[in-house]
């Protein structure tokens, strides 16, 4: 949603980003979905792939939202939305849920980001100022999951950058983001720095670099992030 018209025209919609993230998940992965666009990712993962969704309020094997009228007050996800369970699901309390998370048993945490740094630092829980945001499970998930996939618009609505040399917002965790999915790019974080893997159709690597503070490496020409017709 950058203010540059070219970027705006080519930017992926949330559903497109979620679809791309879903495709990136390894089969059989145990995945935690954060609030916002991350919750959409579940819609694009075919059941046969064996991906399991866990929520930090105490469930592994969360299924899709129940039909209206079928909601069970005792079954919700971390976004406080009603859920179903899939065969093989299990439930447990917060202490056990975060033992799993902190202990490295969650393969991938998919989290919304406010800022990401060149080193993969993540800032996603608050903006400077009194009385804003909350930590929730973000710091535990960012520190504990084996990989963190971050999702954000590439720039702020006013054009301000969000992929920075160093985050300016309070950090959630240092050096944890392994893959960043924005509305115009897919960037992987390596010991050698961020590598631009894919750019939105219609844009070039230079377009993405122009709205990114850290130098983005490439490893051959970036692939294309595609948009579906439906929003």
């Amino acid at each position, binding site marked *: 949603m950058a203010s540059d018209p070219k970027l705006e025209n080519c930017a992926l919609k949330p559903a497109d980003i979620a679809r791309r993230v879903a495709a990136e998940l390894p089969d059989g992965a145990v995945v935690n979905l954060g609030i916002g666009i991350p919750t959409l990712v579940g819609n694009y993962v075919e059941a046969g792939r064996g991906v399991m969704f866990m*929520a*930090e*309020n*105490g*469930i592994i094997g969360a299924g899709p939202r129940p039909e209206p009228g079928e909601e*069970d*007050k*005792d*079954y*919700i*996800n*971390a976004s*406080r939305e009603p*859920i179903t*369970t899939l065969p093989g699901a299990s*439930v*447990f*309390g*917060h*202490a056990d*849920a*975060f*033992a799993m*998370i*902190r202990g490295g048993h969650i393969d991938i945490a998919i989290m919304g980001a406010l800022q990401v740094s060149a080193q993969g630092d993540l800032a996603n829980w*608050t903006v400077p100022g*009194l*009385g*804003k*945001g*909350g*930590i*929730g*499970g*973000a*710091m*535990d998930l960012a*520190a*504990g999951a084996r990989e963190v996939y971050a999702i954000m618009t590439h720039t702020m609505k006013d054009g301000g950058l969000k992929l920075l040399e160093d985050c300016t917002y*309070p*950090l*959630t*965790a*240092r050096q944890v983001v392994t893959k960043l999915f924005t509305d115009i790019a897919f960037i992987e974080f390596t010991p050698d720095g961020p590598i631009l893997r894919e750019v939105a159709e219609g844009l070039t690597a230079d377009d993405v670099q122009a709205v990114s503070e850290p130098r983005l490496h490439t490893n051959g020409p970036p692939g294309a992030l595609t948009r579906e017709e439906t929003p």
Partner: protein
Amino acid sequence: MTSDKVYPSSKAAIADIPDGATILLGGFGGAGIPENLLVAMADHPARDLTVVTNHAGFGERGLAVLLRQRKVRKIICSYAFHRSAFVFRELFLEGKIELEQLPQGTMAERIRAAGAGIAAFYTPTGVGTQAAEGKETRTINGRETVLEHPLAGDVAIIKAHRADSTGNLTYRGTAANFNPVMATAAPLTIVEVEEIVDPGVIAPESVHTPSIYVQRVVRGEDLGLRSET
């Protein structure tokens, strides 16, 4: 085994909570909240409370009522400024309530430590963030960690699905959340349940919270109440 911990009403179960108590309050989102015990607390004179719970209240019901009544001196929670936590936010910005915000898993583990006799622990969560400010850090096996201490309550006010009259508890779905760990971390654990059964009805393998962690059980008067936290 024959002790009967069942109280006749929510009011009776919470009657002696004193001013200044630290309360561990179970619930997450709209699930597993001891709604009837919270309603009774609203009619109870105890003030100057510290409440440990996941969110700083939502909307106008449940915990938010106690906040409005100015009975709460301090909130210890993992997520303070949800847009629905407007009662808390207003008090906080006016300097009328204190806040300690913790990572959710660190909060759960600090409560567990209180219940499990762990004097302190080193965790990687929160390193390099505001959550670690002023706390001792230490590099263990090449990874930086933060030292965290137990978080105990004077009272735990929790919700379970079912209890037997000796205090064994079971939870349903994601309504367990903070309830089982909070049950372990206060000398007085008061539990609202939907159903009370005789000892032996819950198989030993099905018990989620053993009876020794529970001092009082009450069947919620109105099981349709819904707040959020």
